[in-house]
Protein backbone atom coordinates (compact mmCIF):
# COMPACT_ATOMS: atom_id res chain seq x y z
CA UNK A 1 0.00 0.00 0.00
CA UNK A 2 1.04 3.63 -0.42
CA UNK A 3 3.05 5.33 2.29
CA UNK A 4 1.64 8.04 4.51
CA UNK A 5 3.67 10.62 2.62
CA UNK A 6 2.30 9.41 -0.72
CA UNK A 7 -1.29 9.59 0.41
CA UNK A 8 -0.72 13.04 1.91
CA UNK A 9 0.69 14.13 -1.44
CA UNK A 10 -2.28 12.72 -3.30
CA UNK A 11 -4.74 14.54 -1.06
CA UNK A 12 -2.79 17.76 -1.36
CA UNK A 13 -2.99 17.47 -5.14
CA UNK A 14 -6.72 16.80 -4.97
CA UNK A 15 -7.23 19.94 -2.93
CA UNK A 16 -5.15 22.03 -5.31
CA UNK A 17 -8.02 21.75 -7.77
CA UNK A 18 -10.09 24.07 -5.60
CA UNK A 19 -9.45 27.76 -5.64
CA UNK A 20 -12.07 28.74 -3.09
CA UNK A 21 -13.29 27.54 0.28
CA UNK A 22 -16.58 26.29 -1.15
CA UNK A 23 -14.95 23.68 -3.34
CA UNK A 24 -12.82 22.46 -0.46
CA UNK A 25 -15.71 22.24 1.93
CA UNK A 26 -18.00 20.53 -0.58
CA UNK A 27 -15.29 17.95 -1.14
CA UNK A 28 -14.80 17.55 2.60
CA UNK A 29 -18.52 17.14 3.17
CA UNK A 30 -18.58 14.58 0.38
CA UNK A 31 -15.79 12.64 2.07
CA UNK A 32 -17.74 12.74 5.30
CA UNK A 33 -20.80 11.33 3.60
CA UNK A 34 -18.75 8.53 2.03
CA UNK A 35 -16.94 7.52 5.21
CA UNK A 36 -17.63 3.86 5.92
CA UNK A 37 -19.66 4.00 9.03
CA UNK A 38 -18.28 2.70 12.25
CA UNK A 39 -19.99 -0.37 13.63
CA UNK A 40 -22.91 0.96 15.71
CA UNK A 41 -21.73 -1.02 18.72
CA UNK A 42 -18.66 1.21 18.90
CA UNK A 43 -20.72 4.40 19.03
CA UNK A 44 -20.70 4.37 22.80
CA UNK A 45 -19.09 6.49 25.46
CA UNK A 46 -16.17 4.09 25.58
CA UNK A 47 -15.07 5.03 22.08
CA UNK A 48 -15.99 8.68 22.20
CA UNK A 49 -13.51 11.46 21.72
CA UNK A 50 -15.28 14.38 23.21
CA UNK A 51 -15.05 17.76 21.54
CA UNK A 52 -17.00 20.60 22.99
CA UNK A 53 -19.30 20.92 20.00
CA UNK A 54 -19.02 17.86 17.79
CA UNK A 55 -18.34 14.35 18.93
CA UNK A 56 -16.08 11.77 17.34
CA UNK A 57 -16.17 8.01 17.83
CA UNK A 58 -13.00 6.13 17.07
CA UNK A 59 -12.30 2.42 16.96
CA UNK A 60 -8.90 0.90 16.33
CA UNK A 61 -7.68 -2.63 15.74
CA UNK A 62 -4.42 -4.16 14.53
CA UNK A 63 -2.79 -7.22 13.01
CA UNK A 64 0.25 -7.01 15.27
CA UNK A 65 1.96 -4.53 12.98
CA UNK A 66 -0.50 -2.40 11.11
CA UNK A 67 -3.34 -0.39 12.65
CA UNK A 68 -6.88 -0.17 11.31
CA UNK A 69 -9.30 2.61 12.21
CA UNK A 70 -12.99 3.24 11.77
CA UNK A 71 -14.65 6.39 13.01
CA UNK A 72 -17.68 8.65 12.88
CA UNK A 73 -18.75 12.11 13.95
CA UNK A 74 -22.09 13.78 14.47
CA UNK A 75 -20.97 16.84 12.49
CA UNK A 76 -20.40 16.33 8.80
CA UNK A 77 -17.43 18.67 8.39
CA UNK A 78 -15.67 17.02 11.30
CA UNK A 79 -16.55 13.68 9.72
CA UNK A 80 -14.93 14.80 6.48
CA UNK A 81 -11.75 15.62 8.36
CA UNK A 82 -11.96 12.33 10.19
CA UNK A 83 -12.26 10.62 6.81
CA UNK A 84 -9.10 12.38 5.62
CA UNK A 85 -7.17 11.21 8.66
CA UNK A 86 -8.34 7.65 8.19
CA UNK A 87 -7.46 7.78 4.51
CA UNK A 88 -3.90 8.67 5.49
CA UNK A 89 -3.35 6.48 8.55
CA UNK A 90 -5.57 3.43 8.11
CA UNK A 91 -3.62 0.22 7.59
CA UNK A 92 -0.24 1.89 8.10
CA UNK A 93 2.53 0.52 10.27
CA UNK A 94 2.33 1.55 13.90
CA UNK A 95 5.84 3.08 13.73
CA UNK A 96 4.88 5.25 10.79
CA UNK A 97 1.65 6.40 12.42
CA UNK A 98 3.45 7.29 15.61
CA UNK A 99 5.86 9.60 13.85
CA UNK A 100 3.52 11.00 11.15
CA UNK A 101 3.50 14.80 11.14
CA UNK A 102 0.39 15.22 9.00
CA UNK A 103 1.60 18.45 7.45
CA UNK A 104 -0.91 18.08 4.62
CA UNK A 105 -3.68 19.56 6.75
CA UNK A 106 -1.76 22.80 6.73
CA UNK A 107 -0.97 22.57 3.00
CA UNK A 108 -4.59 22.09 2.01
CA UNK A 109 -5.58 25.13 4.04
CA UNK A 110 -7.41 23.39 6.85
CA UNK A 111 -4.82 23.99 9.56
CA UNK A 112 -7.31 25.87 11.71
CA UNK A 113 -9.19 22.62 12.31
CA UNK A 114 -6.18 21.10 13.99
CA UNK A 115 -5.44 24.07 16.20
CA UNK A 116 -5.22 22.92 19.81
CA UNK A 117 -7.90 25.41 20.79
CA UNK A 118 -10.47 24.03 18.32
CA UNK A 119 -13.29 22.40 20.11
CA UNK A 120 -14.27 19.89 17.44
CA UNK A 121 -12.70 16.76 18.88
CA UNK A 122 -10.36 16.33 15.93
CA UNK A 123 -7.16 17.17 17.76
CA UNK A 124 -8.03 14.64 20.43
CA UNK A 125 -8.85 12.09 17.77
CA UNK A 126 -5.46 12.39 16.09
CA UNK A 127 -3.86 12.10 19.51
CA UNK A 128 -5.88 8.96 20.20
CA UNK A 129 -4.88 7.44 16.87
CA UNK A 130 -1.23 7.98 17.66
CA UNK A 131 -1.52 6.79 21.23
CA UNK A 132 -2.99 3.56 19.95
CA UNK A 133 -0.09 3.07 17.56
CA UNK A 134 2.40 3.85 20.32
CA UNK A 135 0.80 1.35 22.65
CA UNK A 136 1.09 -1.30 19.97
CA UNK A 137 4.79 -0.53 19.45
CA UNK A 138 5.39 -0.91 23.17
CA UNK A 139 3.73 -4.30 23.44
CA UNK A 140 5.71 -5.61 20.45
Amino acid at each position, binding site marked *: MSSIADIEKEITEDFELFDD*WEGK*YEYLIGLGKDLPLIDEKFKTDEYIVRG*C*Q*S*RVWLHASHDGNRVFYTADS*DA*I*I*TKGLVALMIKVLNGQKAEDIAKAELGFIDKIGLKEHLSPTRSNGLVSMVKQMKLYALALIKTN
Partner: protein
Amino acid sequence: MVNSTKEIISPSYTSIDWKKIREDFPILKREVNNQPLVYLDNAATSQKPQLVINAIAHYYSYYNANVHRGVHTLSQEGTNAFEASRNTIKEFINASKTEEVIFTKGTTNSINLLAYSWGRKFVKEGDEIMISAMEHHSNIVPWQILCEEKKALLKVIPINEKGELIWEEFLRLLSDKTKLISVVHISNALGTINPVKAIIEEAHRRNIWVHIDGAQAAPHLQIDVQELDCDFYSFSGHKMCGPTGTGIFYGKEKWLEEMPPFEGGGEMIKTVSFEKTTYNDLPFKFEAGTPHIEGAIVLAEAIRYLQSIGLSNISTRENELVHQTTTRLKEMDGIRFIGTAIHKSSVVSFLVNNIHPYDMGMILDKMGIAVRTGHHCTQPLMDFYRIPGTVRASFSFYNNENDIDRLMEGVKKSIQMLS
Protein backbone atom coordinates in the same frame (compact mmCIF):
# COMPACT_ATOMS: atom_id res chain seq x y z
CA MET B 1 -14.69 62.33 32.69
CA VAL B 2 -17.02 61.82 35.58
CA ASN B 3 -20.47 63.13 34.73
CA SER B 4 -23.55 62.36 36.64
CA THR B 5 -25.81 59.97 34.81
CA LYS B 6 -28.97 61.45 36.22
CA GLU B 7 -29.20 64.19 33.65
CA ILE B 8 -29.03 62.01 30.59
CA ILE B 9 -32.32 62.20 28.76
CA SER B 10 -32.57 59.68 25.99
CA PRO B 11 -33.40 60.89 22.50
CA SER B 12 -36.63 59.96 20.73
CA TYR B 13 -36.50 56.69 18.82
CA THR B 14 -37.03 58.23 15.40
CA SER B 15 -34.26 60.74 15.88
CA ILE B 16 -31.61 58.05 16.22
CA ASP B 17 -29.28 57.47 13.31
CA TRP B 18 -28.57 53.75 13.70
CA LYS B 19 -26.23 53.72 10.76
CA LYS B 20 -24.07 56.33 12.40
CA ILE B 21 -24.03 54.44 15.71
CA ARG B 22 -22.48 51.52 13.85
CA GLU B 23 -19.49 53.71 13.09
CA ASP B 24 -18.78 53.99 16.79
CA PHE B 25 -17.54 50.37 16.75
CA PRO B 26 -14.16 50.03 15.06
CA ILE B 27 -14.27 46.24 14.90
CA LEU B 28 -17.29 46.36 12.61
CA LYS B 29 -15.03 47.68 9.86
CA ARG B 30 -13.11 44.47 9.92
CA GLU B 31 -13.15 41.76 7.26
CA VAL B 32 -13.31 38.08 8.15
CA ASN B 33 -12.53 35.51 5.47
CA ASN B 34 -12.55 38.33 2.91
CA GLN B 35 -16.04 39.44 3.84
CA PRO B 36 -17.10 42.37 5.99
CA LEU B 37 -17.72 41.02 9.48
CA VAL B 38 -21.30 40.29 10.50
CA TYR B 39 -21.19 39.99 14.30
CA LEU B 40 -24.18 38.15 15.73
CA ASP B 41 -22.57 36.74 18.85
CA ASN B 42 -23.50 39.60 21.14
CA ALA B 43 -24.91 37.42 23.90
CA ALA B 44 -21.43 35.94 24.37
CA THR B 45 -19.79 39.34 24.55
CA SER B 46 -20.55 42.72 23.05
CA GLN B 47 -18.27 44.85 20.94
CA LYS B 48 -16.85 48.12 22.33
CA PRO B 49 -17.36 51.63 21.00
CA GLN B 50 -14.33 53.78 20.28
CA LEU B 51 -15.01 55.97 23.30
CA VAL B 52 -14.67 52.98 25.60
CA ILE B 53 -11.37 52.05 23.97
CA ASN B 54 -10.24 55.66 24.27
CA ALA B 55 -11.22 55.79 27.92
CA ILE B 56 -9.02 52.77 28.61
CA ALA B 57 -6.06 54.36 26.85
CA HIS B 58 -6.71 57.61 28.69
CA TYR B 59 -6.80 55.84 32.03
CA TYR B 60 -3.44 54.14 31.48
CA SER B 61 -1.81 57.20 29.93
CA TYR B 62 -3.03 59.69 32.44
CA TYR B 63 -4.05 58.53 35.89
CA ASN B 64 -3.30 54.84 36.38
CA ALA B 65 -2.53 54.15 40.04
CA ASN B 66 -3.69 51.83 42.75
CA VAL B 67 -6.89 53.09 44.33
CA HIS B 68 -7.98 53.74 47.93
CA ARG B 69 -5.58 54.58 50.72
CA GLY B 70 -3.22 56.43 48.39
CA VAL B 71 -2.35 60.00 49.34
CA HIS B 72 -0.92 61.08 46.03
CA THR B 73 -2.83 62.78 43.24
CA LEU B 74 -2.93 59.89 40.76
CA SER B 75 -4.28 57.54 43.37
CA GLN B 76 -6.80 60.14 44.43
CA GLU B 77 -7.95 60.73 40.85
CA GLY B 78 -8.20 57.00 40.22
CA THR B 79 -10.16 56.49 43.44
CA ASN B 80 -12.52 59.32 42.60
CA ALA B 81 -13.19 57.90 39.14
CA PHE B 82 -13.58 54.41 40.60
CA GLU B 83 -16.14 55.53 43.16
CA ALA B 84 -17.87 57.78 40.63
CA SER B 85 -18.28 54.70 38.45
CA ARG B 86 -19.88 52.88 41.35
CA ASN B 87 -22.31 55.75 41.60
CA THR B 88 -23.07 55.65 37.87
CA ILE B 89 -23.84 51.95 38.18
CA LYS B 90 -25.94 52.53 41.26
CA GLU B 91 -28.08 54.97 39.29
CA PHE B 92 -28.12 52.73 36.22
CA ILE B 93 -29.84 49.94 38.17
CA ASN B 94 -31.50 52.33 40.60
CA ALA B 95 -29.98 50.82 43.72
CA SER B 96 -30.69 52.84 46.82
CA LYS B 97 -27.07 53.16 47.90
CA THR B 98 -23.60 52.88 46.39
CA GLU B 99 -22.78 50.49 49.24
CA GLU B 100 -24.99 47.95 47.51
CA VAL B 101 -22.89 47.88 44.34
CA ILE B 102 -19.97 45.42 44.44
CA PHE B 103 -17.45 45.18 41.63
CA THR B 104 -16.77 41.59 40.54
CA LYS B 105 -15.11 39.80 37.63
CA GLY B 106 -18.43 38.97 35.98
CA THR B 107 -21.78 37.32 36.54
CA THR B 108 -20.16 33.98 37.34
CA ASN B 109 -18.00 35.57 40.01
CA SER B 110 -21.03 37.42 41.41
CA ILE B 111 -23.05 34.22 41.76
CA ASN B 112 -20.14 32.42 43.39
CA LEU B 113 -19.76 35.29 45.84
CA LEU B 114 -23.42 34.83 46.74
CA ALA B 115 -23.16 31.05 47.02
CA TYR B 116 -20.01 31.15 49.14
CA SER B 117 -20.90 34.06 51.39
CA TRP B 118 -24.67 33.99 51.76
CA GLY B 119 -24.88 30.24 51.17
CA ARG B 120 -22.40 29.27 53.82
CA LYS B 121 -24.11 31.43 56.37
CA PHE B 122 -27.79 30.82 55.69
CA VAL B 123 -28.17 27.39 54.12
CA LYS B 124 -28.66 24.37 56.35
CA GLU B 125 -29.11 20.66 55.76
CA GLY B 126 -32.45 19.94 54.11
CA ASP B 127 -32.94 23.50 52.81
CA GLU B 128 -33.91 23.99 49.20
CA ILE B 129 -32.43 26.23 46.52
CA MET B 130 -34.62 26.75 43.49
CA ILE B 131 -33.37 27.44 39.98
CA SER B 132 -35.01 26.88 36.60
CA ALA B 133 -34.55 24.47 33.72
CA MET B 134 -33.16 27.23 31.50
CA GLU B 135 -30.26 28.37 33.69
CA HIS B 136 -26.75 29.07 32.47
CA HIS B 137 -24.12 26.76 34.01
CA SER B 138 -22.99 29.73 36.09
CA ASN B 139 -26.34 29.68 37.85
CA ILE B 140 -26.33 25.90 38.29
CA VAL B 141 -22.86 24.73 39.30
CA PRO B 142 -22.27 27.09 42.27
CA TRP B 143 -25.56 25.87 43.75
CA GLN B 144 -24.67 22.24 43.13
CA ILE B 145 -21.39 22.75 44.95
CA LEU B 146 -23.17 24.50 47.83
CA CYS B 147 -25.95 21.92 48.03
CA GLU B 148 -23.50 19.05 48.08
CA GLU B 149 -21.52 20.65 50.89
CA LYS B 150 -24.57 21.57 52.95
CA LYS B 151 -26.70 18.53 52.08
CA ALA B 152 -29.30 20.92 50.70
CA LEU B 153 -31.57 20.23 47.74
CA LEU B 154 -31.57 21.81 44.31
CA LYS B 155 -35.07 22.16 42.86
CA VAL B 156 -35.67 22.97 39.22
CA ILE B 157 -38.65 24.91 37.88
CA PRO B 158 -39.66 23.11 34.68
CA ILE B 159 -40.41 24.82 31.36
CA ASN B 160 -42.83 24.22 28.52
CA GLU B 161 -41.88 23.54 24.90
CA LYS B 162 -41.88 27.25 24.09
CA GLY B 163 -39.24 27.78 26.72
CA GLU B 164 -41.37 29.46 29.37
CA LEU B 165 -41.41 28.69 33.07
CA ILE B 166 -44.49 26.71 34.08
CA TRP B 167 -46.07 28.92 36.70
CA GLU B 168 -48.17 26.27 38.43
CA GLU B 169 -45.15 24.04 38.77
CA PHE B 170 -43.19 26.91 40.23
CA LEU B 171 -45.87 27.49 42.85
CA ARG B 172 -46.08 23.79 43.58
CA LEU B 173 -42.33 23.56 44.14
CA LEU B 174 -42.29 26.35 46.72
CA SER B 175 -42.08 25.02 50.23
CA ASP B 176 -41.18 26.20 53.69
CA LYS B 177 -37.74 24.76 53.07
CA THR B 178 -37.09 27.00 50.09
CA LYS B 179 -34.34 29.41 51.07
CA LEU B 180 -33.46 31.07 47.79
CA ILE B 181 -34.76 31.29 44.26
CA SER B 182 -32.11 32.10 41.69
CA VAL B 183 -33.42 32.54 38.17
CA VAL B 184 -32.27 34.06 34.95
CA HIS B 185 -33.89 37.33 33.90
CA ILE B 186 -33.40 36.71 30.17
CA SER B 187 -32.29 33.31 28.91
CA ASN B 188 -29.12 33.46 26.86
CA ALA B 189 -30.07 30.34 24.88
CA LEU B 190 -33.76 31.05 24.26
CA GLY B 191 -34.26 34.77 24.69
CA THR B 192 -37.14 34.16 27.10
CA ILE B 193 -37.84 37.10 29.42
CA ASN B 194 -38.91 35.60 32.72
CA PRO B 195 -41.61 37.12 34.96
CA VAL B 196 -39.09 37.92 37.64
CA LYS B 197 -41.18 40.55 39.36
CA ALA B 198 -44.00 38.08 39.92
CA ILE B 199 -41.53 35.46 41.11
CA ILE B 200 -40.06 37.91 43.59
CA GLU B 201 -43.51 38.79 44.91
CA GLU B 202 -44.43 35.15 45.44
CA ALA B 203 -41.10 34.49 47.08
CA HIS B 204 -41.21 37.46 49.42
CA ARG B 205 -44.70 36.53 50.54
CA ARG B 206 -42.97 33.40 51.91
CA ASN B 207 -39.78 35.11 53.13
CA ILE B 208 -37.67 33.52 50.45
CA TRP B 209 -34.62 35.35 49.12
CA VAL B 210 -34.40 35.97 45.36
CA HIS B 211 -31.34 36.37 43.19
CA ILE B 212 -31.67 37.35 39.54
CA ASP B 213 -29.05 36.43 36.93
CA GLY B 214 -29.19 39.55 34.81
CA ALA B 215 -26.26 38.80 32.48
CA GLN B 216 -28.49 39.06 29.41
CA ALA B 217 -30.90 41.63 30.81
CA ALA B 218 -28.61 44.50 31.78
CA PRO B 219 -27.46 45.14 28.19
CA HIS B 220 -31.00 45.19 26.80
CA LEU B 221 -33.51 46.32 29.41
CA GLN B 222 -33.76 49.17 31.88
CA ILE B 223 -33.15 47.47 35.23
CA ASP B 224 -34.63 48.87 38.41
CA VAL B 225 -33.65 46.77 41.40
CA GLN B 226 -35.86 48.74 43.76
CA GLU B 227 -38.91 48.31 41.61
CA LEU B 228 -38.14 44.59 41.17
CA ASP B 229 -37.42 44.41 44.88
CA CYS B 230 -34.94 41.58 44.26
CA ASP B 231 -32.55 40.76 47.07
CA PHE B 232 -29.58 40.18 44.78
CA TYR B 233 -28.85 40.92 41.13
CA SER B 234 -25.80 39.97 39.02
CA PHE B 235 -24.57 41.06 35.62
CA SER B 236 -21.45 41.31 33.45
CA GLY B 237 -19.84 44.48 32.10
CA HIS B 238 -18.30 42.85 29.04
CA LYS B 239 -21.74 42.03 27.63
CA MET B 240 -22.79 45.69 27.70
CA CYS B 241 -20.00 47.47 25.84
CA GLY B 242 -17.69 47.48 28.86
CA PRO B 243 -14.23 45.95 29.29
CA THR B 244 -13.66 42.23 29.89
CA GLY B 245 -13.18 41.09 33.48
CA THR B 246 -15.92 43.34 34.84
CA GLY B 247 -19.16 42.48 36.57
CA ILE B 248 -21.51 43.69 39.26
CA PHE B 249 -23.05 42.07 42.25
CA TYR B 250 -25.95 44.00 43.72
CA GLY B 251 -27.39 43.13 47.11
CA LYS B 252 -29.73 44.85 49.52
CA GLU B 253 -27.67 46.54 52.17
CA LYS B 254 -29.30 44.70 55.06
CA TRP B 255 -28.33 41.32 53.58
CA LEU B 256 -24.84 42.40 52.61
CA GLU B 257 -24.31 43.57 56.16
CA GLU B 258 -25.24 40.15 57.48
CA MET B 259 -23.17 38.20 55.00
CA PRO B 260 -19.60 37.20 55.92
CA PRO B 261 -16.80 38.19 53.54
CA PHE B 262 -16.01 35.90 50.61
CA GLU B 263 -12.38 36.50 49.67
CA GLY B 264 -9.87 37.84 52.20
CA GLY B 265 -7.05 40.27 51.54
CA GLY B 266 -6.20 43.92 51.10
CA GLU B 267 -8.99 46.51 50.87
CA MET B 268 -11.59 44.36 52.62
CA ILE B 269 -10.29 44.78 56.16
CA LYS B 270 -10.50 47.50 58.77
CA THR B 271 -7.75 46.22 61.04
CA VAL B 272 -5.59 43.12 60.87
CA SER B 273 -3.65 41.47 63.62
CA PHE B 274 -2.71 37.83 63.92
CA GLU B 275 -5.16 37.53 66.80
CA LYS B 276 -8.12 39.39 65.38
CA THR B 277 -9.13 40.88 62.07
CA THR B 278 -12.09 43.19 61.61
CA TYR B 279 -13.69 43.68 58.22
CA ASN B 280 -14.22 46.87 56.33
CA ASP B 281 -17.56 48.53 55.68
CA LEU B 282 -19.63 47.93 52.56
CA PRO B 283 -18.95 47.75 49.70
CA PHE B 284 -15.26 47.15 50.43
CA LYS B 285 -15.89 44.10 52.60
CA PHE B 286 -16.54 42.18 49.39
CA GLU B 287 -13.75 43.66 47.29
CA ALA B 288 -10.53 41.97 48.36
CA GLY B 289 -7.32 42.83 46.55
CA THR B 290 -6.47 45.40 43.94
CA PRO B 291 -9.60 45.72 41.82
CA HIS B 292 -9.74 45.75 38.01
CA ILE B 293 -9.46 49.53 38.15
CA GLU B 294 -9.41 50.15 34.41
CA GLY B 295 -12.45 47.91 33.99
CA ALA B 296 -14.48 49.45 36.79
CA ILE B 297 -13.82 53.02 35.69
CA VAL B 298 -14.46 52.39 32.01
CA LEU B 299 -17.63 50.40 32.65
CA ALA B 300 -19.21 53.71 33.65
CA GLU B 301 -18.18 55.12 30.29
CA ALA B 302 -19.94 52.21 28.55
CA ILE B 303 -23.06 52.79 30.62
CA ARG B 304 -23.12 56.46 29.77
CA TYR B 305 -22.82 55.48 26.12
CA LEU B 306 -25.81 53.12 26.39
CA GLN B 307 -27.77 55.78 28.22
CA SER B 308 -27.00 58.36 25.55
CA ILE B 309 -28.89 56.08 23.14
CA GLY B 310 -31.47 55.06 25.74
CA LEU B 311 -32.19 51.55 26.95
CA SER B 312 -35.75 51.66 25.72
CA ASN B 313 -34.59 52.68 22.25
CA ILE B 314 -32.09 49.85 22.36
CA SER B 315 -34.81 47.32 23.23
CA THR B 316 -37.08 48.61 20.49
CA ARG B 317 -34.35 48.42 17.90
CA GLU B 318 -33.28 44.93 18.91
CA ASN B 319 -36.86 43.67 18.94
CA GLU B 320 -37.25 44.97 15.43
CA LEU B 321 -34.15 43.07 14.29
CA VAL B 322 -35.26 39.89 16.04
CA HIS B 323 -38.72 40.17 14.53
CA GLN B 324 -37.35 40.57 11.01
CA THR B 325 -34.95 37.69 11.43
CA THR B 326 -37.61 35.39 12.80
CA THR B 327 -40.06 36.28 10.04
CA ARG B 328 -37.53 35.61 7.31
CA LEU B 329 -36.20 32.41 8.83
CA LYS B 330 -39.76 31.12 9.15
CA GLU B 331 -40.01 31.08 5.37
CA MET B 332 -37.29 28.47 5.14
CA ASP B 333 -38.05 24.77 4.92
CA GLY B 334 -37.10 22.63 7.86
CA ILE B 335 -36.48 25.49 10.28
CA ARG B 336 -37.06 24.79 13.95
CA PHE B 337 -36.94 27.60 16.50
CA ILE B 338 -35.69 26.79 19.97
CA GLY B 339 -37.33 29.27 22.30
CA THR B 340 -40.63 30.78 21.19
CA ALA B 341 -41.75 32.46 24.39
CA ILE B 342 -44.22 35.29 24.12
CA HIS B 343 -41.88 37.60 25.99
CA LYS B 344 -38.59 37.43 24.18
CA SER B 345 -35.45 39.47 23.82
CA SER B 346 -32.51 39.80 21.43
CA VAL B 347 -31.82 36.11 20.72
CA VAL B 348 -32.84 33.82 17.85
CA SER B 349 -31.90 30.18 18.42
CA PHE B 350 -32.67 27.67 15.68
CA LEU B 351 -31.89 24.43 13.88
CA VAL B 352 -32.49 23.42 10.27
CA ASN B 353 -33.42 19.86 9.37
CA ASN B 354 -30.80 17.67 10.96
CA ILE B 355 -27.87 19.90 10.16
CA HIS B 356 -25.44 19.91 13.08
CA PRO B 357 -25.06 23.42 14.52
CA TYR B 358 -21.28 23.12 14.34
CA ASP B 359 -21.42 22.56 10.59
CA MET B 360 -23.65 25.54 10.01
CA GLY B 361 -21.43 27.67 12.23
CA MET B 362 -18.40 26.69 10.15
CA ILE B 363 -20.02 27.59 6.85
CA LEU B 364 -21.36 30.87 8.21
CA ASP B 365 -17.89 31.72 9.47
CA LYS B 366 -16.46 31.12 6.01
CA MET B 367 -18.90 33.78 4.85
CA GLY B 368 -17.77 36.24 7.52
CA ILE B 369 -20.79 35.71 9.78
CA ALA B 370 -20.16 35.15 13.48
CA VAL B 371 -22.91 33.27 15.31
CA ARG B 372 -22.58 31.01 18.30
CA THR B 373 -23.26 27.30 18.01
CA GLY B 374 -23.41 24.64 20.68
CA HIS B 375 -25.05 24.31 24.05
CA HIS B 376 -24.52 27.94 25.12
CA CYS B 377 -23.54 26.76 28.61
CA THR B 378 -27.07 25.45 29.13
CA GLN B 379 -26.63 21.70 28.72
CA PRO B 380 -29.64 20.70 30.83
CA LEU B 381 -31.79 22.89 28.58
CA MET B 382 -30.39 21.22 25.46
CA ASP B 383 -31.13 17.85 27.07
CA PHE B 384 -34.71 19.01 27.63
CA TYR B 385 -35.05 19.70 23.90
CA ARG B 386 -33.03 16.56 23.08
CA ILE B 387 -30.64 18.48 20.86
CA PRO B 388 -26.85 18.81 20.92
CA GLY B 389 -27.11 22.57 20.60
CA THR B 390 -28.48 25.35 18.45
CA VAL B 391 -27.34 28.00 16.05
CA ARG B 392 -27.80 31.27 17.89
CA ALA B 393 -27.88 34.71 16.35
CA SER B 394 -27.89 37.29 19.13
CA PHE B 395 -28.44 40.92 18.33
CA SER B 396 -27.24 44.24 19.53
CA PHE B 397 -28.49 47.70 18.65
CA TYR B 398 -25.52 48.17 16.30
CA ASN B 399 -26.62 45.31 14.07
CA ASN B 400 -28.69 46.19 11.04
CA GLU B 401 -30.79 44.94 8.13
CA ASN B 402 -27.72 44.18 6.07
CA ASP B 403 -26.55 41.79 8.81
CA ILE B 404 -29.88 40.01 8.53
CA ASP B 405 -29.59 39.78 4.73
CA ARG B 406 -26.14 38.30 5.06
CA LEU B 407 -27.34 35.84 7.71
CA MET B 408 -30.16 34.68 5.41
CA GLU B 409 -27.74 34.19 2.54
CA GLY B 410 -25.46 32.27 4.86
CA VAL B 411 -28.18 30.02 6.21
CA LYS B 412 -29.40 29.27 2.68
CA LYS B 413 -25.93 28.46 1.48
CA SER B 414 -25.24 26.19 4.44
CA ILE B 415 -28.49 24.34 3.92
CA GLN B 416 -27.56 23.85 0.30
CA MET B 417 -24.07 22.61 1.13
CA LEU B 418 -24.92 20.51 4.16
CA SER B 419 -28.19 18.81 3.28
